[in-house]
């Protein structure tokens, strides 16, 4: 039975000392609330009253019929799609450019990663200034119509503003992971390919990309889960405005529960979000693992 003691008493003592404190905190913070959340979806709790009435599956029906919820879910899927693609493309290119022995590449790496160190709240505010003041000013001075009004007051442009800030925030982080992947590539294989006359594009397609699959799996997983749950940047950059057109699903759930005081419906919607995220990341990891084996 392992090495945590010989006698049962000793084993029990070590279980209490080593495992229980951490497990207790984990369970009271993650597991119990998660399970309690299912119970909440069956009640009509409004956040204040002491007694909760059981309402059965009414909240799930309400969540199903909540047009705003599905609209924000749709918007989130669109946002996730574009952010994940752009973040990873840009990060991959940056990583490729910064592993070719470029002068000062460490300096560049350090710089590109910087936005990731700063919390979403501050990032959102910084870019709010950029979009609503700096670019408007630039538009007026240069006569470029695209910047003449604030991007944040137009539904489509505000959506793209969110994507841009996300790319700015996450691409440096993913770049670091791709760099680790590039540095791990065997120089022998690369040289053999060069000697065999493989061009840059051929090497990229047939050797580098297949060998980098593990890095792609990690980066896609990280960007997917980050993008699905984004809240801070959404809150401080657009706040869901104009007219709630940029309200992503995390913000919708928050407002449903804490602003509209509809805890049961909010939690039911949060569970839908959980199921969707779990399915997508599960499928992504499964496919990645399959590709990895084939390569």
């Amino acid at each position, binding site marked *: 039975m392992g090495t945590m003691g010989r006698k049962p008493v000793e084993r029990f003592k070590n279980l209490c000392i080593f495992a229980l404190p951490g497990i207790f905190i984990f369970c009271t913070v993650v597991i119990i609330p998660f399970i309690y959340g299912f119970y909440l979806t069956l009640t009509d709790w409004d956040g204040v009253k002491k007694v909760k009435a059981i309402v059965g599956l009414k909240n799930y029906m309400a969540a199903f019929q909540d047009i705003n919820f599905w609209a924000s879910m749709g918007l989130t899927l669109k946002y996730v799609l574009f952010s994940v693609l752009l973040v990873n493309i840009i990060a991959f290119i940056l990583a490729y450019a910064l592993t070719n022995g470029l002068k000062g590449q460490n300096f560049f790496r350090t710089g590109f990663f910087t936005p*990731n160190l700063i919390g979403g709240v*501050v990032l959102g505010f910084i870019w709010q200034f950029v979009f609503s003041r700096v670019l408007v000013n630039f538009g007026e001075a240069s006569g470029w119509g695209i910047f003449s009004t604030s991007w944040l007051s137009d539904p489509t442009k505000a959506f793209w503003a969110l994507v841009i800030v996300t790319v700015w925030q996450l691409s440096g982080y993913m770049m670091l992971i791709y760099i680790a992947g590039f540095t791990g590539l065997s120089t022998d294989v690369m040289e053999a390919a060069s000697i065999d006359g493989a061009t840059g594009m051929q090497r990229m397609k047939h050797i580098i990309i297949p060998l980098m699959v593990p890095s792609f799996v990690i980066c896609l997983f990280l960007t997917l889960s980050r993008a699905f749950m984004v809240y801070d940047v959404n809150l401080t950059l657009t706040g869901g405005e104009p007219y709630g057109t940029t309200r992503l699903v995390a913000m919708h759930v928050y407002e449903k529960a804490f602003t509209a005081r509809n805890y049961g419906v909010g939690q039911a919607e949060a569970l839908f979000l959980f199921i969707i995220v779990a399915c997508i990341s599960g499928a992504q990891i499964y496919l990645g693992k399959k590709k990895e084996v084939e390569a």
Partner: protein
Amino acid sequence: MKKSAKVGGTRKKVLSITGLFAVVIMFFLYMIPFILILLNSFKYKRDIIKNPFSLITKKGYTIENYITAFEKMNFLRAFGNSLFVTGLSTIAVIILSAMVAYYFTRAKNKFSSVFFTLMAASMIIPFQAIMIPLVSIYGAQLGLLNHRLTLVFLHTGFAMSMSVFIFQGFIKSNIPISLEEAAYLDGCSKLQTFFKVVFPLLKPTTSTLIILNVLAFWNDYLLPSLVLGKKNLLTLPLSTYTFYGTYSADYGVIMAALVLTVAPILILYLFLQKQIISGVVAGAVKS
């Protein structure tokens, strides 16, 4: 890769010059928001509205924005709160998760395997699926909101599974049991063995996890916003948010507040860039 760049000839060289050019332009685009915030934090409001790019200002430069921001956002108080919460949570997570991970690796029983699986599976749960019951339990039922220690407790709980996971992987492949047996024969208890022999050997992983957790706790907004509402308890992100709401038209002061908020972490980054970068990469790759 370095070698192939040398043998490539002129075409390679042209490519690498365009490459460098592209990287420099990208770099400039990435840095420009920071530069603008810093520049405008020293300007008067009228000059900012007139031209946020210009280095030449009508009224000159000022540090008044900083003085106002520092006082009005109660910077020292918020900084202290952030330091308290981040510091205590990080210490708690590191020690507790190392002990749990050690137990999981060494005691191969039902308990270990059940809770290890549970922790691994829980990493997929989005925070949004927990926050509502969390407020209901810790707020309405236990009345524990508006205490910094509650936030420490919750931070610790949320960071637990990832930290246990990373520690467990390291202990499993790097800490030989024979070392512990030697200490055990010398009369050390399990707890002594752990703190005197095992824990010091975990140092590379410990520093990775310190970096990851400190960044996550320091920058977190949503969870602290649910727990702390009282003005004197706000952490830096919370007080920046409240401050912005009140002063949003006062651009210079806002810029100064943003600079003050990001300064601590950027200064840390300046000194620990190597450790932070390798820590973040190690964390991502391992989990």
